[in-house]
């Protein structure tokens, strides 16, 4: 008896091993390539061609400072607004719920650029705020709505049984939220908050239209005077890339640490 001949397509049933998992040592880390590449270029370009690269790098440091200032102030404000909004969105109080939901719906439906113009120029006629404050308020106002959704999802992810158990132990609603739900929800919330942080940092480049002297504005000022568009925007892109790469690494380390406690 001979074995039947095999023809046509064969389907191999695997165990999914063909898909590499994160942290596989066989994988080349895209992060390291991008990081070392960006760093090397930022160091080598000024050495290789001081004019104009060194001049550009000398021109933008105060812009980097402003970008960080706007990013950090806005993220702190946005997290506070987000927490309130997230709690408001799950509130049984109809009025609070409506206000929070309305805020999220309205803000998510308006482009950030339009919001920036609105807060800066339209409201500028009514309340006078310094440019950088207007930028921070606008960024926080917009990202507060995104954060609100992140918080709501995080709180909703905690099993209902937790709240029920807490109530049966005699905790009231706010105690339950504070001691039982939020500490657990925080683990789910932190990684997306980290991503929003990076997104916010990149979006701060929009505030350059408000004459806020961030990295991009400084770069544009340099380019408009020297006409070195290629060189200037290369450096600007590399600086942004380097900052976001460092931040994303920090966030993935943080995620890893949080995951440590979470293995279920």
């Amino acid at each position, binding site marked *: 008896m001979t074995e039947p001949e095999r023809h046509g397509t064969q389907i191999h049933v695997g165990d999914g091993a063909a898909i590499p998992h994160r942290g596989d040592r066989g994988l080349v880390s895209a992060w390291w390539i991008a990081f070392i590449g960006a760093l090397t270029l930022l160091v080598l370009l000024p050495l290789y061609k001081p004019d104009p690269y060194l001049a550009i790098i000398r021109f933008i440091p105060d812009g980097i400072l402003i970008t960080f200032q706007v990013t950090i102030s806005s993220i702190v404000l946005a997290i506070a607004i987000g927490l309130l909004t997230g709690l408001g969105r799950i509130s049984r109080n109809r009025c609070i719920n409506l206000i929070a939901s309305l805020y999220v719906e309205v803000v998510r439906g308006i482009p950030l650029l339009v919001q920036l113009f609105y807060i800066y*120029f339209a409201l*500028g*006629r009514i309340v*006078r705020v*310094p*440019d950088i404050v207007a930028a921070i308020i606008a960024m926080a106002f917009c990202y507060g709505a995104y954060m609100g959704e992140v918080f709501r999802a995080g709180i909703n992810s905690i099993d209902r049984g937790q709240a029920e158990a807490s109530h049966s132990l005699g905790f009231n609603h706010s105690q339950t939220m504070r001691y039982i739900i939020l500490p657990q929800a925080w683990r789910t919330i932190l990684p997306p908050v980290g991503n929003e942080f990076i997104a916010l940092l990149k979006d701060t480049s929009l505030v350059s*239209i408000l*004459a806020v*002297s961030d990295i991009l*504005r400084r770069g*544009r*000022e340099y*380019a*408009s*005077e*020297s*006409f070195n*568009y290629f060189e200037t925007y290369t450096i600007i892109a590399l600086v942004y890339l380097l900052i976001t790469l460092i931040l994303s690494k920090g966030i993935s380390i943080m995620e890893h640490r949080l995951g440590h406690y979470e293995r279920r």
Partner: protein
Amino acid sequence: MYTRWNTLVLCLFISLFMVCQPAAANERTIVFASDATWPPMEFVDDQKNLVGYAIDMVRAIAKEGGFKVEIKNTAWDGIFAGLAAGKYDAIASSVSITETRKKSMDFSEPYYTVRQALIVRKDSSITNLADLKGQKVGGQIGTTGYFTIKAAKDLEAKSYDEIGLAMEDLNVGRLAAVICDDPVAADYALKRYRDTLKIVQIIEGDTAEQYGFAVNKGNDEVLALINQGLAAVKAKGIDKELQQKWIGQ
């Protein structure tokens, strides 16, 4: 099936040719870029038309020089990069002829002379540049007005994408002063913001500042056409008429 594909490809090619066909082959078209946020030199009126001194000037030059003209409204920041990239043949956007700019582009004969004007709020006690120590002064990015601010000592220079945004910030009090070309300053201080803003100083430079049309380095063909038309416009006194129409005095 095969023939149907052929027909489709044929149709595509035909439509491609129709799109690419030049409008009129007999007359040369010169494409100008203009940042229409600079009244009264070039701006957009309430009918969304490009109007202004420079726009009329370009049309008159085209008529005298015997070429067709197309004007593209282009944002100021990047207008020179667009020229270098060949997106248009020339810039008619109140470009002052400076030594730095001459290194990367060629200029036509000058068509207008300007000076830098200092604008403040009506209630301000500032009368000249020296009074502004340590205060925020705004100008449009990459303009000679902004370079004047940068060159002055002890000022906090703020650059804006459009001069109108700087004027608004001055109007609401985020800036102590704005510096820009005098016809534009006059338009804002005497028309748009006549209740809140005033011109307090005309800053005299070392050399006269003049507007020219910019073309790419070595684009002598276009430059010659523009210069030829400009000479005819000046000879006929059309520039004086336009001055009367748009600027007055």
